[in-house]
């Protein structure tokens, strides 16, 4: 070390030499140490992925804990104290919110709400079952003199039980994601983890409170039950409130795009903190807040802000999670333990037993109400996947000191956590493989699979509509109506459903275009990060003599991007947008009408441009907009009221042109340039257009020179209402048409307003 001196605030007056190098560690100590810890954890994470095989078999949480144990050992031998990260405040106020926000924000809303009943059932009733069961059995054990733990009261047993029955989202989800479990299972476990927080914390407080009392009165118990509902519901309402406020705020951030992500984060965190203030379930608050605001916010903010938000949430969440596991390992070594063979081992045994029993019993009860009942393998996945983690640990740490056996409880909790994370975490994968749990098989689909599955899904959707099976979706329909009529008007800036459809569509296409660009330019390093956020591209590994695997990959991409989505289904659970079906609906309707018309060759029909489209399969030559063939007016039965939708119809075509060039990998390479420029300008346009009322995309497009060349019709279509030159005459009144199918159908197509 070069000559250094500590600078003290009051330098010794006798010292006159000017120090050349000074070292002022105390000043930077805290941020420095934080940074180092985070860096260390990140290196650990990078290190794991160097050797790919490890992460396949050993979940990351295990690895992190192990590294933590090692570091903890080092620190212990040096008699250093670990940073006070897992204290109650630091954990609950700083470490937990990002993780929960991450989970909540990326939660696929639709499957979540479809499984809502099941989720609540498992979360609330399941946790209660576990806690009470474990508590009672442990109390029974305590009575046995041999173990020497008679001093633990029933209430304290319940307390401990409630701590160790909290299933932990972080650990479970890493495991489940690693093994690509069936979507339903993922959602149920995930939801259960989130919701059982409310239950656990309430139980914890309840038993804490009760443990301190000498005598338990019935009145107290009822109060606490009431408290449980207050906590749960309160958290939800709070979260929803904050979600709406956030959405409302983003309505006005049109001019200050840079702070949009900040607003999202601040409000979410605020929701969390204020919920903590009122001691209601803060986790529920932040999750519901994220869920509610996502829908509206993603329509209001710019594309860049959207990406930023997602990236930052993921980043902070992952850092937090890494640190937690890391410190779990560290603190394990450095705390004082109290060991009691009997109690701890039985605690472990009962934890596993009661969870297994609980899942069995609960599934039996709820299966009849489920569309897709859980079979035995699913139940096994649910039960075995119930890992405990950091939440339990933090709860144990925050036990009040008047509990005599606090150290025993802490040790017990740690044992349970480490056992579940290590043993169950490592063995769950081979076991599930063995049992062949229904997995979301994202990578092995053949083209056949994809096509036929989609066919089946469409069929089933059609039959469901036919049977009028709407009661399942009754509440959702009501909500959507309410949403469109009231909420959207308040919360979304440009609330024209058409323009928001267009905006959404453009966003999606933009994302797709960017992905395709990334893959085509061979930039492997960028691709995984996009892929991790968007749907994974399927890779068919077979190569037959005619088809290269790249061709097949292209086919998969083409299909997955272009096949019509089913209404109300998520194709993959990472799909974050559900695009309203307007555009596809129109295409389908047009196609049907045309095919009907062609097949009937009605004589009362002149100007048969449509009939001239003798191409068998109604594909359009590239670069032609649909407007040249099909008058949008045909679909707009309400006539004049919907001129607006005609305009936007043309502008809807516009984004399609942009993207269609992007998704044609078979075209020559100048596509790249075209797409690159259009990507930039479209994004730039996004910024401008937020301010515009009716998205005059056509006119804006012609302003930016790049895109006019690609839009032979789109740009000329502008906002010309009366421009109906190429359009085909349609039978105006039903009476002249003989065949019933040629008449205009009596129903109105779904106008976007009414959806």
């Amino acid at each position: 070390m070069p000559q250094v001196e500590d600078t003290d605030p009051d330098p010794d007056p006798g010292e006159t030499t000017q120090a050349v190098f000074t070292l002022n560690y105390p000043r930077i100590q805290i941020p420095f140490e934080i940074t180092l810890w985070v860096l260390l954890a990140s290196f650990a994470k990078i290190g794991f992925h160097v050797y790919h095989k490890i992460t396949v078999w050993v979940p990351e949480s295990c690895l992190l804990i192990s590294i933590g144990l090692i570091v903890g050992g080092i620190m212990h031998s040096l008699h250093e104290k670990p940073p006070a990260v897992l204290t109650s405040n630091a954990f609950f106020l700083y470490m937990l919110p990002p993780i929960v926000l991450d989970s909540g924000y990326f939660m696929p809303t639709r499957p979540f709400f479809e499984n809502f009943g099941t989720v609540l059932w498992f979360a609330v009733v399941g946790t209660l079952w576990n806690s009470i069961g474990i508590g009672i059995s442990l109390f029974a054990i305590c009575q046995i003199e041999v173990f020497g733990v008679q001093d633990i009261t029933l209430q304290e047993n319940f307390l401990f039980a409630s701590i160790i029955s909290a299933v932990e989202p972080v650990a479970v989800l890493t495991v489940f994601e690693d093994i690509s479990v069936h979507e339903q299972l993922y959602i149920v476990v995930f939801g259960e983890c989130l919701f059982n927080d409310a239950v656990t914390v309430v139980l914890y407080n309840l038993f804490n409170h009760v443990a301190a009392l000498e005598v338990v009165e019935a009145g107290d118990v009822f109060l606490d039950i009431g408290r449980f509902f207050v906590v749960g519901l309160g958290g939800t309402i709070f979260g929803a409130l904050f979600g709406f406020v956030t959405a409302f705020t983003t309505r006005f951030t049109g001019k200050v795009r840079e702070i949009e992500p900040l607003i999202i984060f601040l409000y979410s965190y605020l929701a969390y903190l204020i919920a903590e203030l009122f001691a209601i379930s803060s986790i529920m608050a932040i999750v519901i807040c994220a869920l509610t605001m996502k829908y509206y916010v993603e329509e209001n903010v710019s594309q860049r802000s959207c990406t930023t938000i997602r990236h930052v949430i993921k980043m902070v969440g992952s850092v937090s999670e890494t640190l937690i596991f890391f410190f779990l390992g560290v603190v394990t070594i450095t705390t004082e333990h109290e060991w009691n063979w009997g109690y701890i081992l039985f605690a472990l045994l009962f934890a596993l037993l009661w969870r297994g029993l609980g899942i069995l019993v609960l599934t039996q009860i709820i299966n009849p109400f489920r569309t897709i009942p859980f079979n035995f393998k699913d139940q096994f996945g649910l039960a075995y996947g119930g890992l405990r983690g950091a939440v339990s640990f933090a709860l144990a740490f925050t036990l009040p000191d008047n509990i005599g056996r606090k150290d025993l409880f802490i040790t017990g909790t740690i044992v349970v956590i480490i056992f579940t994370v290590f043993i169950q975490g490592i063995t769950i994968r081979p076991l599930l493989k063995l049992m062949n749990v229904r997995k979301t098989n994202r990578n092995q689909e053949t083209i056949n699979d994809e096509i036929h599955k989609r066919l089946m899904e469409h069929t089933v959707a059609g039959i469901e509509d036919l049977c009028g099976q709407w009661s399942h979706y009754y509440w959702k329909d009501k909500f959507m109506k309410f949403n469109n009529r009231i909420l959207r008007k308040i919360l979304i800036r440009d609330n024209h459903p058409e323009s928001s459809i267009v905006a959404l569509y453009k966003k999606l296409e933009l994302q797709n275009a960017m992905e395709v660009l990334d893959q085509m330019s061979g930039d492997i390093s960028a691709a995984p990060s996009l892929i991790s956020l968007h749907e994974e591209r399927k890779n068919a590994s077979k190569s037959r003599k005619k088809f290269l695997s790249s061709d097949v990959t292209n086919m998969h991409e083409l299909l997955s991007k272009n096949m019509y989505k089913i209404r109300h289904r998520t194709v993959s659970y990472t799909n974050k947008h559900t695009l309203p079906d307007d555009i596809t609906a129109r295409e389908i309707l047009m196609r049907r009408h045309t095919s009907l018309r062609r097949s009937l060759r009605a004589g009362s029909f002149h100007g048969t441009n449509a009939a001239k489209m003798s191409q068998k399969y109604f594909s359009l030559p590239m670069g032609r907009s649909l407007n040249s063939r099909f008058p949008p007016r045909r679909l707009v039965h309400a006539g004049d009221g919907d001129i607006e939708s005609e305009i936007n119809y043309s502008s809807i075509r516009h984004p399609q042109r942009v993207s269609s060039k992007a998704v044609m990998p078979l075209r020559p390479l100048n596509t790249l340039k075209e797409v690159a420029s259009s990507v930039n300008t479209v994004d730039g346009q996004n910024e401008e257009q937020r301010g515009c009322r009716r998205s005059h995309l056509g006119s804006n497009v012609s302003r930016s020179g790049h895109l006019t060349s690609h839009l032979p019709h789109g740009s000329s279509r502008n906002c010309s209402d009366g421009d109906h030159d190429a359009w085909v005459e349609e039978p105006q009144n039903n009476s002249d048409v003989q065949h019933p199918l040629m008449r205009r159908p009596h129903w109105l197509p779904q106008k976007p307003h009414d959806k």
Partner: protein
Amino acid sequence: MGSRASSLLREEDIEEIKKETGFSHSQITRLYSRFHSLDKGENGALSREDFQRIPELAINPLGDRIINAFFPEGTNKKYTAREDQVNFRGFMRTLAHFRPVEDNEKNKDLTSGEPLNSRTNKLHFAFQLYDLDRDDKISRDELLQVLRMMVGVNISDEQLGSIADRTIQEADTNGDMCISFSEFTKVLEKVDVEQKMSIRFLH
């Protein structure tokens, strides 16, 4: 099956339908009221227009094919056009394909003939959506037609053609450039057809 116009559902009818399709009593009555509400002409049978009047079905890409599947074929499959009226029994018979497979049924042996909602019958239903001319083979053209129905306007004919070719190539084992029903079954063996082609009928 003749078009027996019965506007009221009698108990013995319900029993027969129950036996044939496996639906429960309440499901049958519920579906009957739906049938009745669709039947605008009040003649105890549904025509194609009645189906097309359902808006959601109209915007379903496969709407026409699905509607078609309800109408029973004539006795001589290849040459007789389908009938244009379907009565309640026919309606239920088609819907029975979509009943979820219960576990206890999976192992039932097939002495009474295969239930309508067996895996094979579900697959057969899907197969028939492709196979318009009912020659028990999905030709390239038929595949292309369905593909075109399911896909947006952005895909060109050549691309769709190559997708169809690839599909046939993956499935075709006997080299006739068509997909037969057994090849279809084989290629979908890993897919959970029982779950995918099932809907939960409310009680």
